[in-house]
């Protein structure tokens, strides 16, 4: 009887502790969200203050594109014009790695986009935009429809091969590449096949075959792709000297390619040459994937620029999360693992990403995160899959061995 009688204000504090903790979490959540979306609006001091630099419209092809868009605006139901404009916008999106242009491309064909059976030109565009948004199954469905109607559409076969490769379905990817032999240039078909073969146990043969084919070609765009595949294959085989040579050959073509820059930066990081990465990428902070590699290099150099770049990366990831997009999972996993040293979170993201994409880097992130988090068992789906595909990759092999010693 005495105990409850003597229970006064202390009982209350216990009872309401949970409530106050909840309030605290709510407030913390607000502050976090506030930070991301609404920083601190201000009034610029002078009318001359430059607020924003627009993407260059300097060159002739950009001005042509603007002109095309204007014409389309006055005639939005012109299918040919719409497809031509959208194709140019997707080219621009890929060249600048700027996702807004995918949206503009979708707008160009919006009149047909949601129809039950869009014209095949629109389906082709929709597949490429869906590929960008990581809706791989939606993209493959669109491509099947295009190919049912136009079995000689090289563009569709190639896009299909690329997506199947990203998903890790190398056998089907090779089938699609085979169709290209009679529909496109020899080097394009060879690069397509060599890429898929090099990832499924035939890296040496693929490398030699592609090297020979590339030597006899003068198509700049196809060469760029072929040299990138050659460099990546050589690096996976452990021939760093050959890889370096091919990367430099590709860069010497002077075609700006975000993918090539990212792949070469990764190669340099693996060679522990962070200073070279900084000089390669210091102007490319607008592209998330390149900013990530720059920050990784700056981390190794203990550079003063790192905190700002890291903040920027995290703000961009947060912005993607607010939108509900998941196309940043690979980059986010890598930020958590390598920049922030949070292997647990990194492993979760890497495994989510693994359900969508299965390129060597996707496998590598799972293995590295599992190793760092001390959760070797979590890497089993990836190690099983690597054994199944016979993928040759010295970096992945080293990680597997380390995991097996655990």
């Amino acid at each position: 009887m005495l105990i409850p009688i003597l229970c006064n204000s202390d009982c209350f504090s216990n009872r309401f502790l949970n409530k106050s903790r909840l309030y605290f979490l709510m407030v913390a959540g607000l502050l976090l969200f506030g930070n991301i979306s609404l920083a601190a609006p201000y009034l610029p001091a002078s009318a001359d203050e430059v607020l924003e630099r627009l993407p260059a419209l300097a060159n002739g092809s950009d001005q042509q594109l603007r002109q095309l868009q204007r014409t389309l605006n006055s005639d939005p139901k012109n299918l040919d014009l719409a497809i031509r404009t959208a194709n140019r916008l997707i080219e621009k999106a890929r060249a600048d790695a700027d996702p807004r242009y995918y949206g503009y491309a979708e707008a160009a064909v919006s009149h047909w986009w949601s129809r039950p059976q869009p014209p095949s030109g629109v389906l082709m565009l929709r597949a490429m935009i869906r590929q960008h948004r990581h809706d791989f199954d939606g993209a493959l469905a669109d491509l099947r429809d295009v190919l049912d109607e136009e079995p000689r559409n090289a563009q569709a076969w190639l896009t299909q091969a690329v997506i199947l490769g990203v998903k890790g379905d190398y056998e089907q990817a090779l089938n699609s590449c085979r169709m290209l032999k009679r529909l496109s240039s020899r080097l394009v078909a060879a690069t397509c096949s060599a890429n898929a073969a090099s990832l499924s146990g035939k890296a040496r043969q693929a490398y030699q075959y592609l090297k020979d084919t590339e030597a006899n070609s003068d198509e700049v765009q196809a060469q760029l792709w072929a040299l990138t595949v050659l460099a990546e294959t050589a690096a996976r085989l452990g021939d760093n000297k050959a890889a370096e040579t091919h990367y430099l050959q590709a860069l010497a073509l002077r075609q700006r390619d975000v993918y090539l820059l990212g792949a070469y930066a990764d190669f340099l990081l693996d060679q522990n040459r962070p200073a070279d990465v900084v000089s390669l990428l210091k102007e490319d902070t607008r592209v998330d994937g390149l900013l990530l590699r720059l920050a990784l290099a700056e981390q190794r150099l203990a550079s003063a620029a790192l905190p700002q770049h890291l903040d920027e990366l995290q703000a961009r990831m947060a912005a993607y999360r607010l939108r509900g997009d998941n196309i940043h999972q690979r980059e986010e996993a890598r930020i958590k693992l390598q920049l922030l040293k949070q292997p647990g979170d990194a492993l979760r993201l890497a495994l989510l990403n693994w359900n969508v994409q299965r390129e060597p880097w996707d496998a590598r992130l799972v293995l590295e995160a599992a190793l760092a988090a001390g959760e070797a068992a979590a890497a089993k789906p990836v190690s099983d899959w690597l054994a199944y595909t016979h993928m040759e990759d010295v970096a992945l092999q080293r990680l597997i061995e380390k995991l097996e010693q655990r």
Partner: protein
Amino acid sequence: MRYVLTGLLIWLSVAPALAHKPSDSYLSVEIRQHAVEGQWDIALRDLDYAIGLDDNADGQITWGELQRRHDAVAAYSLAHLTISADGLPCLNRVTGHLVDKHSDGAYAVLRFAVLCEAMPRVLTIRYRLFFDLDPSHRGLLRLQYQGHTQTAVFSPEQPERRVELATPSSSWREFTEFVKEGVWHIWIGYDHILFLISLLLPSVVLRDERHWQPVMHFRRAFFEVLKIVTAFTVAHSITLSLAVLGIVNLPSRWVESAIAASVLLAALNNIYPLVSKQLWLVAFGFGLIHGLGFAGVLNDLGLPDGSLAVALVGFNFGVEAGQFTIVSVFLPLAFLLRDSWFYRRLTLGFGSLVIAAIALFWLLDRSLDMGWAASVNAVFN
């Protein structure tokens, strides 16, 4: 077409590259007591794409260029946003233009007042900005209302959000929550119970000369109890309200000690009666002090901003309900036993003595801040 455009083919080799940022705007709507306010951050790049900001076409947007286009920016943006209160569209009036930097560049910040016919119960926001130019554009909404924040994403597929404000269910939930707290407080607030019981114990008997005589009719006992309970209730409601509204503010140590003293005096009064006729006056006087004690509890709970009245009435209602339960058990029992030795000696006499002893313990503990109650608690736990 034997060969396809090589340029296009080659870009296909890249795995989906990630870059820049897709287009987003940040819409923040805050609902205050008598006003709805908005802030809308829109990327300069997107505004330039839609209505053109770069007057001199040098690839740069300066503050001066943006200022010259402020009217156009406001007109274009607000034409793509409809906020309605209970189905009637409100008027959005611009109150200021600022600039902010987000992760992907500079944004125009549009501040506006939302003028509605009446404070809405259902707020509907319809968002269509840029969807025609870029279907991958998203509007990220943050809505603040009474300390709560809701977020939502507008897309071409989901351009509209309906937000129920001040729904009866939510304030009803708040009300019942506070009723529960009131009942709970009476139930574990032994000082209040013992005070009430001390006052009620003599209600079924009459002081006659120096002896207790049982009252003859239940009616009489009932009205005696009613008077006491009503006086106590009115008194503590008054001080509870005054204290919660911040009009009266006394140190809690003083209040708690005074509550202990009130229990002590009420119990001693049953042993050496000083007041035996107008007990309701005693109940009223000390009730004022108990009300201050309730206020301390209610403040500890954390009061909701916009619904103080709901909290106050709810908590008080809970306290009354708890009291009523205690009284409705006490009165019939006491009335039945009033004529027995058990009631008059053991309950009224010895019971009051025990209550007085406990109250004295509280009084010393609270007024001298001895921490006895806490240490006894610790031993028994």
